[in-house]
């Protein structure tokens, strides 16, 4: 009987010959990641529970990215970054990326990839539900709370129930009007926000193979929106090339057996999928862009771990080149590396940054920003009555700020097309 990739990686981390779905196992953690919202309470629990003898199990394996509430005057939020800074200094942590310094990276999930912490075959836990993003690198990655993180911080161990796997195969060649965001919105509409609860979501097929690492990360990122424990894509040449370029060479490649047992399998022909949105107030409230076309907007937002990667901005810049936006539009590069790429990459000799500025967009500094609302002075935060279209991951009531606002989730192409018209627009109009 065959095994799925997630089972194989978890067996390795549990130092077992094999594990199967439903087994409760203890894992040795390869990387623990935290940030400014959940880091301080994690540290507090660790100190309280381990007391005077509190020791970090492995400093090399602890990675801390302040990223959520960085550009704010909120004193409590700033105090949280101070707590991280003091902790990093007290324990001389090698992998702390302090805000306000050249080491600052921006959104943790993207920085994990850029800085080489995503290593195929390993297990990574983070105090953030979108930690599943790292699964694009053929590894097991999932979110945990502060207590679990504090336990890992002191012991390097965590319990998990091995998940059943679901398989999502995308056949065919990606049409120019589709992005990975449309693919994951397609899945969410089909299986709903609890359709993958406590399960692994495995993605494959010709269309997936053709995607860049950043586009793949959009898929694994939103596995949590279906309740998934992890999203995962096996290593191929695209993964190996990305890793090679950033100097990650020591890793183990796992693949699902052909006779692996799956909870369920879904198969799609990408030529049959059209640009999609998730309507307010749930990521599974799927509809076609065509059906909501014309919906008047007050804000457009391109950013976050889901939709603020360089690939997202390439899509958007291609549409916005030489055009003007008709509604307030925010460009929030997920990481400082992406922000730098916006200055360096060009279309017809014009940098992406210039394209956005000339189009009338507001370019913000890298952080989680308004994806999750944040303190009242957060750039792009929704206010009462706002109708927003966004490349982010969640449109729960109040998620981007006001619970009297409405948020549509869509691809960067759809958001850019909508920004030009000021109302929701199918990107095919401009392609």
């Amino acid at each position, binding site marked *: 009987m065959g095994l799925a990739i997630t089972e194989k990686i978890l067996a390795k981390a549990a130092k077992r010959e094999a594990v199967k779905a439903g087994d*409760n196992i203890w894992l040795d953690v390869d990387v623990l990641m935290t940030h400014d*919202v*959940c880091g*301080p*309470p994690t540290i*507090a629990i660790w100190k*309280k*529970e*381990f007391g005077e*003898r509190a020791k970090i199990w492995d400093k090399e394996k602890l990675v801390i990215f302040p990223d*959520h*509430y960085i550009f704010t005057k*909120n004193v*409590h*939020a700033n*105090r*949280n970054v101070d707590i991280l800074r003091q902790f990093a200094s007290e324990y001389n942590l090698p992998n702390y990326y302090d805000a306000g310094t050249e080491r600052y990276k921006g959104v943790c999930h993207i920085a994990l990839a850029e800085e080489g912490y995503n290593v195929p075959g390993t297990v990574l836990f983070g*105090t*953030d*539900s979108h*930690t599943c993003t790292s699964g694009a690198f053929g590894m097991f990655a999932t*979110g*945990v*709370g*502060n*207590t*679990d993180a*504090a*336990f890992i911080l*002191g*012991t390097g161990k965590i319990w998990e*129930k091995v998940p059943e796997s679901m398989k999502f195969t995308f056949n065919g060649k990606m049409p120019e009007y589709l992005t990975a965001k449309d693919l994951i919105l397609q899945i969410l509409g089909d299986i709903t*926000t*609890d359709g993958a*609860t*406590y399960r692994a979501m495995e993605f494959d097929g010709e269309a997936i193979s053709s995607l860049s690492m950043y586009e793949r990360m959009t898929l694994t990122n939103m596995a*949590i929106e279906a*309740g998934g*424990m992890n999203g995962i894509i096996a290593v191929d040449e695209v993964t190996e090339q990305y890793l090679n370029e950033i100097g990650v060479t020591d890793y183990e490649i796992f693949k699902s057996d052909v006779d692996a047992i799956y909870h369920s399998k879904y198969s799609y022909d990408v030529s049959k999928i059209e640009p999609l949105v998730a309507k307010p*107030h*749930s990521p599974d409230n799927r509809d076609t862009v065509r059906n909501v076309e014309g919906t008047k907007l007050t804000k457009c937002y391109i950013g976050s771990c889901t939709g603020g990667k360089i690939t997202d901005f390439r899509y958007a810049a291609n549409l916005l080149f030489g055009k003007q936006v008709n509604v307030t539009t925010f460009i929030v590069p997920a990481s400082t590396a992406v922000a730098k790429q916006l200055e360096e990459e060009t279309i017809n000799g014009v940098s992406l940054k210039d394209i956005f500025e000339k189009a009338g967009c507001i370019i913000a500094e890298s952080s989680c920003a308004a994806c*999750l*609302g*944040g*303190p*009242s002075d957060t750039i792009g935060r929704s206010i009462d009555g706002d109708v927003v279209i966004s490349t982010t991951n*969640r449109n*729960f*009531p*109040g*998620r981007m*700020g006001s*619970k009297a606002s409405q948020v549509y989730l869509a691809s960067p192409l759809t958001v850019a097309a909508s920004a030009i018209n000021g109302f929701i627009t199918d990107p095919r109009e401009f392609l």
Partner: protein
Amino acid sequence: MEKKIIGKAYVLGNNVDTDQIIPAEHLVYSTSDTEEIKKYGHFALSSVPLNQAGLPDGGKQFISGDNYRSDYSIVIGGTNFGCGSSREHAPLALQVAGVKVVVAESYARIFYRNSVDGGFVVPYECSIKLNDKIKTGDTIEIDIDTNMIKNHSDGKSYKLNPLGDVFEIVEACGLFAFARTSGMIN
């Protein structure tokens, strides 16, 4: 741990996400300062849409005025309770507000783990949909030894799903206490 819990029910719908339980803008307060932590209780369930707040009628505030403790100590939800963000502040906020047990048809994984491993609230599952049988304000009794929930307001009882694999952690009141009793950590 308390084996018999009696309190008033606060009834919610499906897919109550952690942004509704504790909006992200409030995730700045200390979780270890005994005064500041009260903010989490004060803002608990503050982003639930008004028509969903306290079913079946809605429009019932979970926390009244400047309080940080709620009149309700048992939350009855539907499916996928606690979906979304991994913030452990969510079950913590419910605990600070005085909630002892949540009963839902199903949970999102991270909220469930956080509730158990942090020892904040007991997350019971019930195969029967209860949020159309119990009304906000009903007096509810939960017996952890027998896994039963009784509605004193109409006399009806329902079977809860046993806590199963996590019972020992729930009984120990959290992962650290469990790990100590089992000799895993000192």
